[in-house]
């Protein structure tokens, strides 16, 4: 059991350290860690709720979003944008709230207790938002 926990910890640290981004959640985000699959399903519109709470997605436009899509969602930015265009124009969901910079996104996350977004690993996080670890598996 201890070995499995240790391996899980290593795995989660590995994903965390090797990515350029960290996930950040609002104060009331219902989980401390989510799987890579859950992250993908959230940002591709297949999941809206975690632990019964609706998650408000946040994203930063431009190169950050492109890198995030390729590294964490395993889709191109073109593919990602087309998926959301389909949803927006057929009444099947709300596109993630989009911000020009990390500062304005973090400010929004302070107000959205169930919000979820991503920032560069080097960004200093304000009090009131917290890092959500990404783990492999459910």
């Amino acid at each position, binding site marked *: 059991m201890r070995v499995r926990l240790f391996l899980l910890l290593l795995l989660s640290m590995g994903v965390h350290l090797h990515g350029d981004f960290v996930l950040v959640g609002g104060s009331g985000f219902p989980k401390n860690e989510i*799987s890579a*699959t859950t992250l*993908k*399903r959230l940002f591709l519109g*297949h*999941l*809206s*709720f975690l632990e*019964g709470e*609706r998650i408000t997605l946040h994203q930063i436009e431009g190169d950050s979003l*492109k890198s995030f899509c390729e590294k964490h969602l*395993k*889709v*191109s*930015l*073109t*593919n990602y*944008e*087309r998926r959301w*265009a*389909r949803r*927006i*124009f*057929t*009444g099947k*969901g*709300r*596109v993630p*709230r*989009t911000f020009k910079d990390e500062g304005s996104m973090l400010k929004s996350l302070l107000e959205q207790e169930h919000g979820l977004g991503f920032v560069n690993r080097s960004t200093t996080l304000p009090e009131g938002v917290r890092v959500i670890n990404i783990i492999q*598996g*459910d």
Partner: protein
Amino acid sequence: MALALWAIPLGAYEVDGVDVHGSLSQSYMKTHGHEWLIPGSLEGTFEYTEFSLNAYKQFEHWNLGAQVISRDFGREGDFELRLDWAHVEFNALDALSLRLGRVKLPFGLYAEFRDVDMARTEILLPQTFLPEDYRGAAVAYDGVGVAGDIPIGESHLLQYHLYWGTNNIKDDFFLNYLTQGIYESATAVPPALPGISQDQAVLDTKTLRGGQLIWSYDPWQWRLGYNYLHYIGHFALDFYDLKNFAGGVPNVVRDELGLELDIQWHILSTDLFLGDWFFRAETMMRLNDYTQGDLFMDRFGGPGGLTTNLANGNELWSWYFSVQRQLLDSTGVYARFGRFILVEEEPVVGGSTKLNEFSVGVRHDFSEHVLGKLQVFHYWGYPGTLDQATNNDSSWGMVLARMTVHF
């Protein structure tokens, strides 16, 4: 108009938590060898414009939204503003949501967003599969739907959508089809038919029900879908005797049973991403069962579309496959081949039996909100009469260019 909007700063608008999005597109169409879809296409025409605007509000477990659409497509549309979709949705959980109102109709993997230019590389979807001149028949349903996304482990996702309601095709579509060769009337009232009133040529029943099931394998971005649609339509009692129609003005006859259309569609779809490549294929079988249909339909070829002159007992089989490649972030190309084959219970002289379509195209995104597309088509193998005013060739070509602005 689209060019004028280019200069306006665009972005998603949010007012008190209500998201507002819209799009405007202007197309240019030119055909060669056959005047098709839009009158004047042989000389080139700009009579192909689409505009949409939607508003969407999300609550904790409720979603509320609506979209209006206005289009001009040759003799159809005429910029009439129509409600494209408007529904309230209760999200109990991701796996179970209830939709009530006007909802986009699942019909294969792509028909729901056939008007969403931003969502694909090509302009028109395959005309052997989703003919534009029959657009009004498969746009949305007015009724109730149950849908959901069910994750199965790490790699699989099951999506479903079951619905029951009425087709939102216009009640007088058949009258317009007879008088003008179009399915969707414009604001202009169509000319009266001799001996028959408009009330006697409208659909009084437009029931439909069906479902969609999509299985996804996430690691490969591979989807497999099945759609079923069952449509029952009924016309009023008095109508033309098309069975004995030999030109001129047909006789008006009374049939106590009227004409009931019982049509079923089965659609199998699949698509797959492989890096910058995107492959997709769909096949559809349409089965007709008309009560009293022989009286009206056997001799009726119709002046408009190619795939619509289906008589009782006929089956229509169509399919296509498409290969798409994203060359750059902003530029993608595609090639597509499709075909339909009409299996007639009783072969009709001069009737349509098949059509082949091949098209290639390119899409370039000039900015986050402006995109341009070019699409070239070639059609061949159609044995019926295409356009008596121009020629009787069995092949023709079409070039379509479009500029779209969206936010």
